[in-house]
């Protein structure tokens, strides 16, 4: 009973949230369109194994490289796998990699940024120096170097992507905390004897959250594209796991023979997924930009 109550109150909060997003004009609508795209693709991937007409990992369900027809609506690839089934199920690896890397970045970057900027002094300078060095460097190069050493796989891809994006969280949190911690209400909390972790978690963190949300959505989009990039240079999964990145990478060799359908559909899916997250991120960052509010 209590749980139902809670659900209802959350729903009651979310629905007006949506209507107010619509009222916020184009930026709010971008956020909503982005959310719908992402949600649709997540549901499609989750349902994939049940609704796919063929086993996505089985090769030779038909002849190789058949163009789209009634039996195989999106054709077959160079291994004779059904492209439709692979497209329906192929988001799983990318979603896993990006979710895991975002989680890792969040769990490491945010506390590190909070702690470093709150403590200040030498600790802060040392952390900032290391983080800035990583931040200024081509992310994909770092991810490739780490993934190359760790070897292919979901967890390894997520780890190498996480290393690249931790600096983004650290920097945004740090810059916000530096200005917030000087505000009078924080001073007031300190003067009544609040502990440092109380100040950080209850007084400062809530004010940093909006900026972190923007970073998370952009991180998601980047992680998806980076995962596709890592797969492209051979650090992803193997052929028996349906993955849009793998299909795109290995199908491109056959494009000169005119077999466009092998890469077109997985490619579009990657674009859609990255686009969904980008729309959310861009819409939110414009909504939250105080300089653009009249």
């Amino acid at each position, binding site marked *: 009973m209590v749980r139902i109550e809670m659900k209802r109150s959350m729903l009651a909060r979310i629905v007006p949230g949506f209507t107010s997003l619509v009222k916020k*004009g*184009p930026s709010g609508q971008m956020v909503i369109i982005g959310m719908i795209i992402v949600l649709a693709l997540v549901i499609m991937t989750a349902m994939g194994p049940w609704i796919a007409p063929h086993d996505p990992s089985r090769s030779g369900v038909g002849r190789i490289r058949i163009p789209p027809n009634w039996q195989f609506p999106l054709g077959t690839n160079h291994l004779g796998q059904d492209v439709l089934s692979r497209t329906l199920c192929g988001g799983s690896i990318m979603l896993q990699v990006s979710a895991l890397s975002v989680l890792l970045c969040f769990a490491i970057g945010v506390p590190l940024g909070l702690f470093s900027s709150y403590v200040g002094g030498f600790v802060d300078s040392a952390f900032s*120096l*290391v983080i*800035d*060095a*990583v931040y*200024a*460097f*081509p*992310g*994909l*190069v*770092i991810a*490739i*170097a*780490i993934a*190359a*050493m*760790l*070897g292919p796989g979901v967890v390894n891809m997520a780890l190498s992507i996480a290393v690249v994006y931790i600096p983004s969280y650290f920097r945004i949190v740090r810059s916000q905390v530096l200005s917030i911690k000087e505000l009078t209400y924080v001073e007031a909390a300190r003067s009544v004897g609040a502990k440092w972790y109380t100040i950080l978690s209850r007084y400062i963190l809530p004010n940093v959250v909006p900026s972190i949300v923007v970073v998370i959505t952009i991180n998601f*989009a980047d992680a998806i*594209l980076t995962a*596709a*990039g890592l797969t*492209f*240079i*051979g*650090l992803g999964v193997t052929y028996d796991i349906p993955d849009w990145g793998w299909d*795109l*990478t290995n199908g*491109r060799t056959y*494009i*000169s023979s*005119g077999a*466009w359908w092998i*890469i077109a559909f997985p*490619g579009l899916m*990657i*674009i*859609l997924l*990255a*686009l969904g997250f*980008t*729309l959310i991120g*861009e819409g939110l960052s*414009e909504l939250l*930009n105080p*300089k*653009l509010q*009249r």
Partner: protein
Amino acid sequence: MGLRSYVITRVLLTIPTLLLLLTMVFLVMRVLPGDPVSLHFEKKADPLQMEQMRHLLGMDKPLWAQYFDYIAGLVDVNYFSAHGYPNLGKSMQSFEEVGGQVFSAFPATLELAIYSMIIASALGIPLGVIASKSYNSVLDHLIRGFGTVTYAVPVFFLGVILQLIFGVYLHWLPTGLRINPSVVPPPTITGLYTVDSLLQGNFVKFFESSKALILPSLTLGLILSGIFIRLTRTNMLETLRLDFVTAARARGLKDSTVTYGYALRNAFLPILTMVGLQFAMLLGGAILTETTFSWPGLGRYIVQRINFRDYTAIQGAVVMFGLFVALVSLIVDILYAYVDPRIRM
């Protein structure tokens, strides 16, 4: 602080950053699992032979000694003046000097980066200004939509599509390599084929190398232009709302003068900084573009060496990328300080 002392401080600050990067790369390469030596042998290798190879590559020394050797090699002036490139160690796969390989691959990447940057700025900055001028109109939405979509497209997917259209179907442009294989590359002066062929006065070579550059740089440039649109648009929107712009309008100045002479000039500094930062992203994209177009640059070099776990080669290429990024950000910072004296304070 004068401009000169600012430049000196800024250059000195680059050194610890680079050293830090180097150390991290070194540690990542050594601490993470994977053994390049065992890749040279069949499963049942002679342990003595493997030990010999480890010795040859200096891998039998303790980690700190290897690190020290590496740094000492990098700053070895005698080696540099003898070879024309720094000592980055020997490749674990081919036993050749990594420095030489990296230095000969670099100009291809540089040329691709320069042309992509030109395309991205020529497309992104004007579109961003137009979008900010027509804020929230249909035109603004279209330009913004274009920018957002290009950001979400995987570089290599766009590359393959362009190859398919302009190479396979229309036969207009080559789909790979820096120059038509039947044409001898121009003699190396700068290493940039388009520049070298012009210096040589050979227009056939210039034409061939430019043709080969179009698709790769268009691919990378289009992807980057989305970010340029967004940055220019946001900065212009913020600047157009400031008082001095309203004041300029009130004085009855022409709209184009206000937009380009006043607003864009002021919005340009943050745009410049961001362009400098995007250079790092451009190099990441270059790796994938080079692989798509068989472009013999640093990126393809890294990708080819990954399968051999060629630590020294990957490390050398990463160091080269790091130097390049540091140099670009140094130039941007100095430009910034030159344009805006407040930075020097």
